[in-house]
């Protein structure tokens, strides 16, 4: 088990290094950061001096190794545009993204599971067909379009909810800002969370529905019914419980992509999280932020996969045995 973990850990490190290298190679094509740093009147000689001072004239490999050596010490440099340490910037934007992501995931679960159960139990009712139609929209419409539609209908037309931003935030101990404790913060959270969570919700709904249909056909459900248990006990105590294993796995895995794909939702709603920070960095060629963000997302995915791998081993001895035999 320990050997397996160490091997997986080394692989994870390798993946991180490759991600960092590829993103570094891409930065050569995003444009010249110096143009965003100075006004139009700045002379070419001064621009060149600035390039030199920022180390942009060094070969890519030298820039890369310098970045890695510093990154290991948790030093991601200074943002070109904000003139602040990148680590602090990302830390200050992290709460917004995480709150949005977790609320979206919760929304997806809380709505997706009951809808899935319902459509699984009452396949042919009008409501179930309606749910399926909604899920089709959730799967097929791109996120930014859903966001803009929601803004247009709910904010502009009906005037119910704020159209952008995070509302008022409360600072908890100087390290975490939360929008969950103010009314405007909670109201601001609704539309972005629905936008971000809609795809996951439909995914979960369809998964639960499929699993329910499967499970309801199995023998033990028939036996449970034969024993005269109530419908509720059969449907929720026995059937639903057995559908949840894959649902939890998928939700866990999807959490990473919710955080990563928050970029689009954050842009549409001007949500001040990491994704928005990253997109602004791309537009302004703020390489330190881009590098740190990509590495962080890579870290997130690698960590989640690492944990899942370990859990699988813990759960399924066949994997362990297979490794040992080789």
């Amino acid at each position, binding site marked *: 088990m320990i050997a397996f973990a160490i091997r997986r850990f080394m692989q994870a490190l390798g993946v991180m290094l490759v991600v960092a290298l590829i993103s570094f190679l891409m930065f050569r*094509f*995003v*444009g*010249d*950061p*110096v*143009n*965003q*740093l*100075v*006004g*139009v*009147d*700045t*002379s*070419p*000689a001064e*621009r*060149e001096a*600035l*390039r030199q*001072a*920022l180390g942009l004239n060094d070969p890519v490999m030298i820039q890369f190794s310098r970045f890695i050596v510093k990154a290991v010490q948790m030093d991601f*440099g*200074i943002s*070109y*545009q*904000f*003139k*602040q340490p990148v680590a602090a910037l990302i830390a*200050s934007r992290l709460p917004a993204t995480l709150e949005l992501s977790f609320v979206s995931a919760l929304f997806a679960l809380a709505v997706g599971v009951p809808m899935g159960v319902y459509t699984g139990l009452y396949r042919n009712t009008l409501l179930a067909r309606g749910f399926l139609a909604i899920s089709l929209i959730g799967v097929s419409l791109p996120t930014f379009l859903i966001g*803009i539609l929601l*803004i*247009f209908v709910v*904010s*502009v037309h009906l*005037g119910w909810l*704020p*159209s*952008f*931003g995070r509302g*008022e935030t409360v600072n908890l101990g100087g390290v975490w800002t939360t929008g969950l404790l103010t*009314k*405007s913060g909670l109201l601001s959270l609704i539309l972005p969370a629905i936008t971000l969570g809609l795809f996951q919700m439909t995914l979960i709904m369809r998964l639960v529905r499929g699993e329910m249909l499967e499970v309801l056909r199995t023998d033990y459900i028939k036996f449970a019914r034969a024993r005269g248990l109530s419908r509720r006990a059969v449907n929720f105590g026995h059937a639903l419980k057995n559908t949840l294993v894959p649902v939890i796995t998928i939700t866990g895995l999807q959490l990473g992509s919710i955080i990563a794909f928050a970029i689009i939702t954050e*842009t*549409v*709603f*001007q949500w*001040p999280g990491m994704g*928005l*920070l990253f*997109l*602004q960095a791309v*537009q*302004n*060629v703020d390489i330190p932020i881009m590098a740190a963000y990509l590495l962080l997302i890579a870290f997130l995915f690698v960590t989640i996969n690492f944990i899942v791998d370990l859990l699988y081993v813990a759960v399924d001895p066949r994997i362990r045995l297979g490794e040992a035999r080789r």
Partner: protein
Amino acid sequence: MSIGQSFRGLRARSRKLALAAAGAGLLLGSTAHAETLRFAFQGTLNALDPYSLNETFTLGMLGNVYEGLTKRDKDLKIVPGLAESWEVVDPLTWRFNLRKGVKFANGNDFTADDVIFSAERVRAETSDLKTRIPADSQWTKIDDHTVEVKLTSPNPILHYEWDTWYIFDKEWAEAEGAVSPVSARDTNPGPAAFKANGTGPFVIDSHEPGVKTIFKPNESWWGEPEHNLTEVVFTPIAADGTRVAALLAGDVDLVDPVPVQDIPRVNSDPNTEALTGPELRVIHLGFNQFRDELPTSDIKGKNPFRDVNVRKAIYQAIDMEAIKERVMRGLSTPVPLLIANELFSGSGEFKRLPYDPDAAKQLLADAGYADGFSVGMDCPNDRYVNDEAICQAVVSMLARIGVTVNLNAQPKAQYFAKVLAPGGYDTDFYLLGWTPGSFDSWNVITNLVGCRDETGKGGPFNLGGYCSEEVDALAAKIVGEIDPEKRDALIKEAYTIMTNEVSHIPLHQQSLVWGKRKNIDIVQRPDNQVLFYWATVN
């Protein structure tokens, strides 16, 4: 602010105040008159050091907090700022009489020492505003409220850009470790990057870069406020659709810019309207006249753009009225020169070459390109209003006279990296916009038209490398000519040469389009600075 909104604001505020366990009755009384301006712009306000970045939006926002020796009024005329008056003692000596009784936001007095300090600071190695004052000028304090400037050569436009050269408090800067400006290469930026201490009508209450900035009126400002605001909340909103939706939904009061295609939507809402006016920026096309052969052209061994007939042909093939109507939806002002009509007194005497595709074909034939030729064009797609659409229109118009243009439209970051000096001026045909920082022709002539070498020495933004020794000689005369009439005559001479030789093709001044709630009154100056001290909420 509608009744519903002000109630909502009132409730939120009073709840917060109750939490603070303060006298609720008293505070309700004061918030009843609270006038908040919520403003959203497409870009972010980053570092607050006003010498870090020479850019209109940043300097405009900081102009609410800091002040220069001069100011510009609602019509961009130079008026006294922190200097009450000034005199040109002789062509090389200027004397400034400073305003008395002015205090910085932290309570320190404003004196001649602060001006001298600021003059040093703005010329420091790390400043991006070095062009504000001549590097070799001598600044001396005559007394606490008089400063004398000695120049080494006459400079009639010395104070033209001083409305955005903001005066620092010497003691504050020294105490905060902000003696030298925060620059892009700083690895450990000083506090001036995130704090501000000016003499202006507003102070910065809180600043989260890229998220939110809150301005409050400066109670101890020396002037008479023309605004009725008690708070300004600035939020960047990058996405066009979200910004317009925020205005329509009533979540913000003022947005800049509104995309031209959304103007009817904003105007059709009973609570909002678009505020439009010409901007000083002039969009122009330029030709590569530097190289002997155009790398992107099928003509080998010679450069067609070196022939004035070809340049003229392309000029006459472009239908500016069509671009104005179709691409800009009526919101542009075609111009005959590389400078905005407002900024040169003689601009009325110049006319654009008429749109005439037949004459253009004839000119091409005369130049020996009866069958046309092909060339690559570079264009930004997120820098100017409808920049890519303008380029596409030009491409189709030139196709009618047989010139095949291969358009390469890119985001500004990539575009500028390619076409400016660090990219080796790698462009044969391009679209560029320019606003002279000094609002003066000399800036245009030296930056856009001056002869340059490969590294950009001479005319750094003359991307195509047009070169006229006559224009260069005139530019040298213009810079030292004190007499305004003679100076304008020299400028006119230079523009005449540029026009006759079709050095560039001036296209138009784009329009500013702000969106606002109808209960907001604000002055829209053509330089696109957003100045809260001329805003009122009704």
